[in-house]
């Protein structure tokens, strides 16, 4: 018998500190598998952010740099411009990217910076004990929304992929999930496409990965996967919103015309979830 599955070489052998069943570990492995398969480990520089994945530099077996909270896209910009032949990616949570780092991510995307962003949306600030994030769902209980997020008091959850799709800079934008083995495979395809876009010099790429935080959601790891599927996916539809081919079709088209088309994610072949209805938004 031969080995058909094991730890990718782009992950170190260091045991991960994540809570039991936290899907950060799955997402780490997918990024590492893609590095292995593209043969880019020796020329990749990862940027760890602030959040539960702050120790990502211990786990990725490539060069790593730690950035302060929210600043990973700016740090990645500097590194990529100094080392244009390297592959540069950030790994950021939703608090890091969509809250304190909202400015950095929007401008890195707007500039079409040739970097790849792995954006882990678990609808909460995990590391600091489960406070509301910009991505927390309506009705979701957190330590700062003990009765559940309310639109009037807290505003609506932010859809980062759709927000960035209003810009002409991004070459690749997709949202995926890791709540079952099939979705894990789809997520890997998207991460691979994002790194490929960077290798082809197409510009900014971002993959939003819906992820669980069993600890702060107060659920078992298995219940958390189900909660993600039942609650996050209806609000955060899965699919590719921008690909290099759709982006190049837009080249030369006036910005107003090109941005009018993109926002609804296209399902990944037959495997993605169809664009969800948005009926619940106003409730």
């Amino acid at each position, binding site marked *: *018998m*031969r*080995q*058909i*599955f*094991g*730890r*990718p070489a782009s*992950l170190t052998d260091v*045991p*991960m500190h*994540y*809570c*039991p*069943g*936290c*899907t*950060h*570990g*799955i997402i780490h*492995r997918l990024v590492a*598998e893609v590095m*292995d*398969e593209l043969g880019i480990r020796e020329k990749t520089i990862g940027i760890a952010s602030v959040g539960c994945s702050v120790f990502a530099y211990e786990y990725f077996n490539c060069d790593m740099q730690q950035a302060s909270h929210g600043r990973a896209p700016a740090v990645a910009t500097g590194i990529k411009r100094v080392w244009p032949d390297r592959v540069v990616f950030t790994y950021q949570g939703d608090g890091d990217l969509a809250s304190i780092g909202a400015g950095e991510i929007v401008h890195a995307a707007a500039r079409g910076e040739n970097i790849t962003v792995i954006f882990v949306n678990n609808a909460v600030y995990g590391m600091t004990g489960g406070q509301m994030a910009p991505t927390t769902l309506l009705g979701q209980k957190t330590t700062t929304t003990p009765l559940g997020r309310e639109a009037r008091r807290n505003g609506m959850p932010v859809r980062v992929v759709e927000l960035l799709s209003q810009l002409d800079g991004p070459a690749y934008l997709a949202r995926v999930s890791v709540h*079952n*083995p099939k979705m*894990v*495979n789809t997520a890997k395809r998207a991460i691979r496409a994002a790194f490929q876009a960077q290798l082809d010099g197409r510009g900014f790429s971002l993959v939003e990965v819906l992820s669980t935080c*069993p600890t702060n959601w107060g659920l*078992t*790891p*298995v219940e958390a*996967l189900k909660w993600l599927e039942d609650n996050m996916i209806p609000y955060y539809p899965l699919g590719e919103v921008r690909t290099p081919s759709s982006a190049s079709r837009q080249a030369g088209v006036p910005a107003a015309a090109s941005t009018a088309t993109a926002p609804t994610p296209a399902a990944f072949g037959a495997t993605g979830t169809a664009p969800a209805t948005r009926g619940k938004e106003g409730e």
Partner: protein
Amino acid sequence: MARVTFNEQRCKSCELCVSVCPQGIIFLADEINLKGFHPARVTEMDKCTGCAFCARMCPDQVIEVFAEGGKPVHA
């Protein structure tokens, strides 16, 4: 013919592997590992198809999969 191995000291008893195994052959052992978790194990290895669903869902890189003439998923 397929076989899975568990690096038991890394297991955190999250049961994601248990929940996705189509053959229902993974269970948590009664004893505990050095971290204090009940490690996941396979009872009837002859029923394992080598689908690697368990390994794909394991967040802690506990599981390796071996198969006869199998196509590598990631090895």
